[in-house]
């Protein structure tokens, strides 16, 4: 086969002509079809806007506006269920419409926060979106009442059909929508929302609204976007964090087919721009680059571990909790239990690597991106382009995985904009290779914990001292959240305060400390954030102390949970479903754990066997969750099942190690993922108490690892104190 190229010439002059022609066509397309002509969510919303959340078309279809991002967690379906429940429209006739960050800005944030992280998608918007649905229903009914000149109280509505029984008249939402849109909206506070006991759509296992497009390849993820005249960019940042780009020899690659330019993106990153991404990426690999790797080029996992170890006993820690006198109580105890635990850096490894398409002109900036924070993307676009926010727009694509990676930093948006600025008017799609994605994540922070407990001769726990040493997410991303030296986020799940991430135990004497030990490695939120590490430390150590006290792990926990009835109820639900205490097949052992995060209570029981060679097999996991209200039980189960895979992958294999200042595990051959054959049977027990709104996407991950580790402890008689398990000799 002859080596050919479909680009006539990479000459600058021809290129400019080509891209200018493409830009005019592309602009029109972009304005009309922000997600492209195949955009999965191009809802027909030409009818009457009743309010920001509800548009009713003449054919009775109801368009529900969605502000939050979908990354697989089912939030779009759940949000629609809540609006429709109050709106009383026909579930089979709804369409979803996805507002942009620019629209939200232009309408003074009428749709509220767009950020989708911290398991907040439903719990922090449920109140105002339900009121939006209820207000729209009231206006539609009022419009019918006005038309018929009857009191609105005499009307009934079901599935978008309005009935006046006394006069035997019916109409539909589509027919009265135009009139309803003219009415003054009711005061949202005046609206009475339904009692969840009366829910017909919310609270039910409705099918997802977004499945069909995911079955035949038609869904357009951001990485799939194609715009007229679009160029493709492959990118490489200095492999050592904090290093700089010194120079590159573009002459070595410019003559390759399809290559248009090699560009400096910022002071540590270079990109190759070509007609296709494959050509760009291949050229980038052949591009000679000189880096200044900076002062951290000698860092290794060993030097980082030694740095963290100093924090386990240092004098610079702050006390997040100090109840009674734990040190004295431990000192006076007949039995002292002490253990040091450690968890590694982890990468998010979303299946869709980071990518972003940008088009920048002198007076307009646009990006097409998978984002958990569209308004953050808009801000990044504005800052990097120098264009005011009002001249910028972010077109959202559903995410091929998020897990926290696509929220805060928006580094990929800044990079795409920096590249596209150098090709005014031409859309440029930047895609990271998997290797780049692994090397330049914002990793789950590394930490260690020194756990000490004192137990008396009767097996009573007298005091506990926890010292966590590790890298701070806030110090890296959000320093203003550290107030008076207190970095509360690092002790997530161990807090005193109820409601979000409260520890489910009350100890007679308790000292909880955190010593900050930062590294040069970027860190950020990773599905479940610090509840994962802290859940391992607390719950595995509880088993160690229970063993020292000669007590059953479940009974031992219950003794400290009298003041934590919701934690206890969830723990009991998991234990009961799993048959705690009942016989198991030979060689199979159980472990239990409970923890709280994101406003929800979680517990797990794992059934595990360990072979004579030390291989772990996880047979079954029972998880119980109290998330307050359960908007879609089937999707909650899906999230729990998914959290098991995310948590087990981390427990068994997950480790980002550092050598020569850079990431060692650059693809799935060295950063392995759990596969289907290793999937245990997962049983989900939802125990909603209907008196609060908790999260779902994250809470259950943190109990997966400790339940499995405790089962291994039960199987081998030896506690497991470090992860991942692939590095631990179990027998």
């Amino acid at each position, binding site marked *: *086969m002859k080596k050919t190229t479909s680009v006539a010439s990479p000459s600058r002059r021809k290129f400019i002509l080509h891209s200018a022609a493409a830009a005019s066509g592309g602009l029109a397309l972009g304005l009309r079809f922000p997600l492209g002509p195949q955009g999965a969510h191009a809802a027909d919303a030409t009818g009457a806007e009743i309010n920001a959340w509800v548009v009713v078309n003449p054919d009775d279809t109801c368009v529900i506006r969605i502000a939050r991002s979908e990354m697989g967690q089912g939030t779009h379906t759940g949000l629609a269920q809540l609006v429709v429940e109050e709106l009383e429209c026909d579930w089979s006739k709804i369409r979803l419409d996805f507002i942009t960050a620019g629209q939200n800005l232009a309408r003074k944030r009428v749709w509220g926060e767009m950020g989708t992280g911290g398991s907040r998608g439903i719990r922090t918007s449920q109140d105002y979106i339900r009121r939006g649905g209820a207000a729209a229903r009231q206006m539609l009914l009022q419009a019918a009442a006005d038309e018929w000149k009857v009191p609105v109280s005499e009307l009934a509505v079901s599935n978008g059909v309005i009935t006046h029984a006394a006069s035997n008249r019916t109409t539909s939402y589509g027919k009265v929508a135009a009139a309803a849109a003219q009415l003054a909206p009711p005061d949202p506070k005046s609206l009475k929302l339904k009692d969840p006991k009366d829910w017909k759509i919310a609270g039910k296992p409705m099918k997802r609204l977004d499945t069909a497009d995911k079955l035949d390849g038609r869904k357009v993820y951001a990485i799939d976007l194609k715009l007229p005249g679009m160029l493709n960019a492959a990118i490489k940042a200095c492999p050592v964090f904090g290093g700089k780009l010194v120079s590159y020899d573009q002459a070595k690659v410019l003559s390759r087919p399809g290559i248009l330019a090699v560009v400096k993106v910022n002071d540590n990153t270079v990109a190759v721009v070509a007609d296709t991404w*494959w050509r760009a990426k291949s050229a980038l690999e052949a591009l000679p680059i000189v880096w200044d790797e900076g002062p951290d080029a000698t860092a290794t996992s060993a030097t980082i571990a030694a740095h963290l170890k100093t924090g386990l006993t240092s004098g610079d820690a702050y006390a997040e909790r100090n109840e009674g006198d734990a040190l004295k109580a431990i000192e006076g105890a007949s039995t002292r239990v002490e253990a040091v635990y450690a968890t590694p850096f982890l990468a998010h490894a979303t*299946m869709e690597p980071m990518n972003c398409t940008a088009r920048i002109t002198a007076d307009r900036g646009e990006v097409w991106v998978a984002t958990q924070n569209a308004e953050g993307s808009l801000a990044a676009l504005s800052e990097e382009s120098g264009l005011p926010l009002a001249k910028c727009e972010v077109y959202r694509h559903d995410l091929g*995985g998020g897990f926290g990676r696509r929220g805060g930093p928006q580094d990929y948006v800044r990079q795409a904009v920096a590249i596209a600025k150098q090709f005014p008017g031409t859309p440029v799609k930047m895609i990271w*290779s998997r290797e780049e994605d692994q090397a330049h994540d914002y990793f789950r922070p590394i930490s260690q914990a020194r756990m000490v407990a004192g137990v008396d001769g009767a097996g009573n726990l007298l005091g506990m001292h926890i010292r966590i040493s590790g890298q701070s997410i806030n110090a890296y991303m959000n320093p203003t959240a550290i107030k008076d030296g207190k970095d509360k986020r690092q002790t997530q799940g161990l807090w005193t305060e109820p409601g979000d991430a409260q520890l489910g135990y009350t100890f007679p004497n308790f000292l909880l400390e955190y010593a900050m030990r930062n590294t040069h490695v970027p860190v950020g939120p990773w599905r479940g954030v610090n509840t994962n590490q802290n859940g391992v430390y607390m719950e595995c150590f509880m088993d160690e102390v229970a063993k020292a006290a000669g007590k059953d792990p479940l009974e031992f926990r219950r003794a400290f949970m009298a003041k934590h009835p919701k934690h206890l109820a969830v723990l009991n639900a998991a234990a009961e479903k799993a048959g705690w205490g009942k016989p198991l097949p030979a060689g199979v052992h159980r472990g239990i754990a409970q923890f709280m995060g994101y406003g929800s209570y979680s517990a797990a029981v794992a059934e595990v066997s360990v072979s004579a060679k030390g291989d772990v097999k996880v047979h079954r996991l029972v998880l119980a969750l109290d998330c307050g209200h359960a908007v879609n039980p089937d999707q909650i189960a899906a999230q729990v099942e998914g959290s098991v*895979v995310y948590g087990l992958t981390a427990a068994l294999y997950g480790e980002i190690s550092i050598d020569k200042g850079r990431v060692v595990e650059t693809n*799935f051959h060295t950063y392995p993922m759990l596969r289907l054959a290793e*999937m245990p049977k997962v049983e989900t027990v939802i125990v909603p108490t209907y008196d609060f709104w908790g999260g779902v996407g994250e809470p259950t991950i943190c109990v997966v690892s400790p339940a499995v580790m405790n089962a291994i402890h039960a199987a081998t008689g030896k506690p497991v104190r470090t992860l991942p398990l692939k590095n631990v000799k179990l027998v």
Partner: protein
Amino acid sequence: MAKLNINGKVRDVEVEPDTPLLWVLREQVGLTGTKYGCGIAQCGACSVHLNGKVQRSCSLPVGSLKATDRIVTIEGLAPNASHAVQKAWAALDVPQCGYCQSGQIMAAAALLAAKPRPTDADIDAAMTNVCRCGTYQRIRAAVHLAADTAGKAKA
């Protein structure tokens, strides 16, 4: 120039022979249902059928393909998503983010073509694609459901 038989249509593509089939499908042919995940045949997001067998297209240079080789992508698996696997995936709401699901569905369809009644062990061996959202439990159930419905349709 290479001649490729994709979803029953023979197409000419102008591309270097070492270009992986994945990128030819996505960038030259415009079929973006086949996904890039790792580029080293580890994750299976790029799975297609080559002469009826599942194949990871990210590591398959187009220069190694002949015009007589039959390539089927997710877009060409069945009209209107009517394959038993696609229907089972819909019935059990298997996808979460959905990014890996084209590859999962192609792997499952190839498995059922070879073994209409797969055991759990067969599914374990054949379904090695990575799903980060963690849909494995539903994938297993959906493969069995697809086998059941396809079996009934033939009976």
